[in-house]
């Protein structure tokens, strides 16, 4: 475990479409077996007043997420970040990413390691 977590993933979950590219990109990168991945996606249907509801997908890094250190060292984006079909995942130093929070709603900053 890193003593000083420095990097994280900023996710704009307003636009996550639940395409699962992140999960499978991670499986391919690290050879995880089916069912396991460094990224998982939760589907949530939240009932709202007046009989309405909101369908939301939330990608989150699991215990297997290594923030793609082997890729980022080579100057590449993490596998999930590059392949996200909706372009909703950003990787970077937590401090920089945190500045983007509040600029628009429905964002979450993960600090997995």
């Amino acid at each position: 475990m890193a003593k000083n977590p420095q990097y994280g993933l900023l996710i704009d979950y307003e636009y996550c479409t639940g395409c699962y590219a992140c999960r499978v990109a991670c499986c391919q990168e690290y050879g995880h077996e089916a069912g396991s991945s460094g990224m998982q996606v939760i589907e949530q249907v939240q009932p709202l007043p007046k009989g309405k509801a909101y369908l939301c997908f939330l990608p989150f890094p699991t215990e297997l997420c290594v923030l793609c250190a082997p890729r980022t060292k080579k100057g590449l984006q993490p596998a999930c970040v590059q392949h996200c079909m909706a372009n909703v995942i950003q990787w970077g130093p937590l401090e920089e990413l945190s500045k983007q929070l509040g600029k628009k709603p429905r964002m979450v900053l993960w600090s997995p390691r």
Partner: protein
Amino acid sequence: MSKSGSNIVRTTTWSAGPGCHGGCGVLAHIKDGKLVKIEGDPDHPWNQGRLCARALAMTQYVENPDRLRKPLRRVGERGEGKWEEISWDEAFDLIEARMKKIRQEQGPESVVFSMGTGRDIGPWICMLAYAFGSPNVMFALSGNACYSPRIAAIDAVQGDFCVFDAGQWLEKRYDDPRYKVPECMIIWGYNIPATCPDNLFGHWIIDLMKKGTKIIAIDPRLSFFASRAKHWLQVRPGADAALAMGFLRVVLDETLYDRSWVKRWTNGPHLIREDTGTLLRESDIDATGSETNYLAWDRQKEAPVIWDTGAVAYSESKADCALSGRFEIRLADGSIIQCNTVWDGLQTQVAAYPLEEVEKITGVPAEDIQAAARLYANSKPASIHWGVPIDMTPGISPLCHAIATLWAITGNLDVPGGNVFTRPAFNAVAYALPGAEGVIKLKDQAQDKPRIGADRYGPFNRFVWRTQTDLTLEQIFSEKPYPIKGLWIQTCNLLGNIGLDPKRWREALQKLDFIVAVDLFPNATTQYADVVLPAATFLEKDGVRSWWVPLQSINKALSVEDCKPDVEINFELARRFDPDFKWRTVHELYDEIIKPSGMSYKQLQEKVWALAPEGHPSVPYHRHEKGLLRPDGKPGFTTPTGLFELYSTLREEWRLDPLPHHEEPPWTPVSRPDLAKEYPLILSTGRRSPVYFHSEHRQIPWLRSIDPDPVVEIHPETAEQHDIGDGEWVWVENWMGRARFKAKVTLVVPTWMVMATHAWWYPEKKGAEPELYGTWEHNINMLLPMGDQGKDGLGAPIKHNLCRIYKAGYQEQ
């Protein structure tokens, strides 16, 4: 290849593999001839480095242990699952002999060539069929209900098809100064997990939403878009045309249309005879006049003026044509008749749809329709993207006409950010598609004569060059006007996926003398073939893609045992069937297909993709104004009149209602209240999975773990009424049959509808009958009929049927 035996191949996705309609640029990492990784190409303008779950799972696909790797010959009964491996030479010899025998005894049209969705099969299956001499290429879905109905319906009234503009013709895309982000987009029956239908990249819409595009979602399900829409119109499946008429009602009543555009570019001013209800022609008023010239009323001279179709202009250049009014016309025989304008005819047709009435038909509140129509019509630009549910109802053509009228009269046609005419890149056309003749064609018109359905349905002689599918199935049984003896099935799972009423299709297969199936994995359909041939993924072949943009090459990265690309299989047999077969090599054929681009195939392979320059007829914008659409270079459209036809002259010729309207389809609670008593829920099918392409990918572990079982979505209240809990197995049943699904109790469906996923089978179960990989337990198509195609042969009730649900027994849980 580098010293380590590793290399990276830049190529293009299409078909087998991700299964999709293609277009993504990818980098295939190859080591010692094996795929070790695949990534999106960050420098490709289409996907810009992104890639879907199915493409990212290619390493598990290419080397999958279930894959067909050798040609197989059936040694048991059909469906018994007994096979022997044979060599390619043996397979080709056997197929050649059997098919030539049928050709000799029954004629070439006695072999039907069956394909699935519009992928990298169409040109090559046509090449084979035409070399054999048969015009009978079949897209095996009832009512040919995927894309070609939409294209045919749109081409009929505006000449060229159009798609939403995401800057796909421009290398810099959204950053190109010529491009405009739409203020509003209607997403009509399309859900994002399908990702890339119709040769578009679905997530472009997400890019646009982030840039401010507001969404109007039309969908009975609470989709991604419905959740994020400014207006969500929860339409009853099958009632879309009524909704479109409601939109038109608002646009006309509130004058939200571009009147000068309507006058200049549509046949709105043309006159309809009150006595016959048909268009007034020059030949009506002058016995020597043309039947294809029409009349309008010139306000300048208060006299009729001729629309000269050949000149694509009114005979009086200064004519000020009336859009409205009732006019007295003297016919050639001296009699006097009354005429109204097409525009007034449209008004009358639309007036039959007051919003309260539309609300009753569609279930969408009148005020929501009004608000959505206002938002769309007042947004400049605005665009519409629609999904395959539009095709999946028999009244598809008048529905498309209504929607096309909407984008045309609001000034959103061929403008940046609107709905933009689209043609194959560089006009490079491989095979006959609506409005375009390809390099691959029948030798002469006479060969096309026996094509099934061509004698019955107008669009099948103008736009759709396949057989009419429902009639084809019928003909296998009736043998009239001639018998069908052979079937070539290529990457098309008739029994497990595309065939409605699959038990009827099984009966049809049993009746045939000879069946070949070409596929990548054994499936329900290959079990019924006499010879099974192992096909290749996109990574194992050279290919070419021009549908729509950019022009792309597929570059071969590797080989897998004896698997062969579809094109090579068909090429070899085409040479054997046709002594005059034109090409010596596949690359020679590709050279000819992409000739309009000015490149050789080798040059294209180096580039991988190419966009045509501005000013090319295949590139936007405003082409009807610039005269870029028509071969004669005159401003206008490639319709019979040269105008956008608010009143369709072709539909008049085909004796169908020439104006947009709603037709209540079969098998709805409205058309069949009697059945609805026993089967009270609307059954809708076919919602997409993010990890599957129709029946494909169930063998891919990374993908299967995400979506492991057939699912039926049921609203919590409906589930409670039926004592069904989330995750329990349930039967979905109607008068045709039943299929078993896992209940997903969810608010995404309304109480009155269930959504059953389609094309389900279990590759891990026994392939031989009676199990047939679980097809007869889980295929929802067992509840959907063949033979309910639309009046023009297009469209079929696939998105709307009726059913009841009940919990499966203890042992079935």
